[in-house]
């Protein structure tokens, strides 16, 4: 009985105070849209960082005249190092052809011999694409036998790391502010909606309903409002994305920005959470203030 009472009262509350419920849903949906937009920016930022890091590689030069079987073993050893994504073998002959293609000169004709050693282009997993990890992987490769030299763009990686750190810091602060604002706004909105139903709460207390019993219909109401707000926010973000795609076509590469289903699902769940959290806290606080 109590479960069904809480459910039915929660839905009745929504129907009875349509104006307050509409306002709460509207404000909650704006708050969830703010959080959703931050998530889209964060998600795509993360994707971009991963892309940047996946572009990073090391060039490993093998000592001249190393036997083929040794080179094969080296490829296996390098492939086993943690953080190595894949590697491409470039034979001395391939290196010479590449030189000819780029500079228009045949090195064999000029020098009479091929000066290029065998080498590997080693790509690092995006998760290991920091300056520290790259340096560690490079030193492990350099310590293998028959390795002449390991080259990579360390300074570029240091700069990328620095800017990523700054961007993550800004994103975290902005994300926290947006999240905090969303919780605060929704708490105040639901608190107002609860205050509008103080007669109902008063009557429930008068007849001897326990605090948890009083709370439940409001929590149901808050969660329904939160879910509705989540659905509206998803629709709002999708429409805004589509409209921006049409209006800004040719100015911004919006087609590269992805709004994943996980973000939409997250927005719905966040709406539910926001409704549950705000109503729970607000009713608890309201009940605590009165005997």
């Amino acid at each position, binding site marked *: *009985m*109590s479960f069904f*009472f809480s459910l039915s009262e929660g839905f009745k509350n929504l129907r*009875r105070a349509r104006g307050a419920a509409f306002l709460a849903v509207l404000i909650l949906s704006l708050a969830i849209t703010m959080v959703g937009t931050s998530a889209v920016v964060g998600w795509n930022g993360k994707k971009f960082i991963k892309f940047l890091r996946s572009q990073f590689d090391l060039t490993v030069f093998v000592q001249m005249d190393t036997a083929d079987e040794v080179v094969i073993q080296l490829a296996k050893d390098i492939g086993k190092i943690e953080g190595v994504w894949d590697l491409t073998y470039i034979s001395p002959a391939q290196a010479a052809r590449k030189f000819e293609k780029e500079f228009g000169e045949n090195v064999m004709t000029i020098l009479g011999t091929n000066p290029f050693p065998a080498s590997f282009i080693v790509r690092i997993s995006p998760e290991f694409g920091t300056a520290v990890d790259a340096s560690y992987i490079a030193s492990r490769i350099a310590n293998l036998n028959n390795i002449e030299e390991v080259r990579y763009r360390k300074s570029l990686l240091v700069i990328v790391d620095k800017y990523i750190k700054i961007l993550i810091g800004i994103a975290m602060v902005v994300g926290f502010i947006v999240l905090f604002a969303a919780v605060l706004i929704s708490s105040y909105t639901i608190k107002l909606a609860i205050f509008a139903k103080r*007669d*109902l709460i*008063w*009557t*429930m*207390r*008068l*007849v*001897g*309903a*326990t*605090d948890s*019993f*009083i709370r439940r219909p409001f929590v149901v109401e808050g969660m329904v409002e939160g879910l509705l707000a989540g659905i509206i926010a998803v629709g709002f973000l999708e429409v805004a994305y589509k409209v921006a795609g049409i209006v800004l076509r040719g100015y911004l590469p919006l087609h590269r920005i992805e709004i994943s289903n996980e973000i939409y699902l997250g927005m719905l769940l966040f709406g539910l959470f926001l409704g549950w959290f705000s109503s729970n806290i607000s009713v608890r606080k309201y009940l605590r203030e009165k*005997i």
Partner: protein
Amino acid sequence: MISLANVSARFTDTIGVEGITLDINKGEFVCITGPTGAGKTTILKLLYMDIKPSSGRVTVEEFDSGTITRKQIPYLRRKVGMIFQDFKLLGDRNVYDNIAFALRATGYKRADVKKMTARVLAQVDLNHRRYHFPDQLSGGEQQRVAIARALVVEPYVILADEPTGNLDPESSNLILDVLISIQRQGTSVVMATHDYHMIDGRGFRRIHLEDGKVTDDSIDVQAE
């Protein structure tokens, strides 16, 4: 058994009641009289533990103001039915739902809610108004709904704070008759009122307050 033992209730800048000692037995009809500000409502609030005494002890059945916890207060209130001058009905629910709400909010089963609400509606003679909303009823009818809501949980005592304050004399007498019939069925009734004429000659126990103190506690002589 209800008792107040040397109870005082002081507020920030006023004294509600001071040094009140009294016992109310099961099935008793007690009128608390006195001018505005004498402490009538404070006594009722102490009984349903909306406020706690600054000193002394209030006991209602097994509930003691000195030991009761916040979580136990709802269980006390299920034994104490309350009625107010302004009825305090839920305007967006009909008569039946206003009464049934008291049972639903305290976890009664659906079948019991139906049965108990129907019984109490008959008791206050409002069966024909069960689907009406409060604003479609007269003041007297609204107060009968409030009485039914207080009564439906079968309380030990009904506390009525100026229940006839907003009613005409005819409706007031009707409400008083309903309260008397409740008392005759074994439920104690404690009614705060300043309408002395209405209770004169009815044979009620009358506790008179002045400035928060009991100045008289006597049984009214019943008129022939």
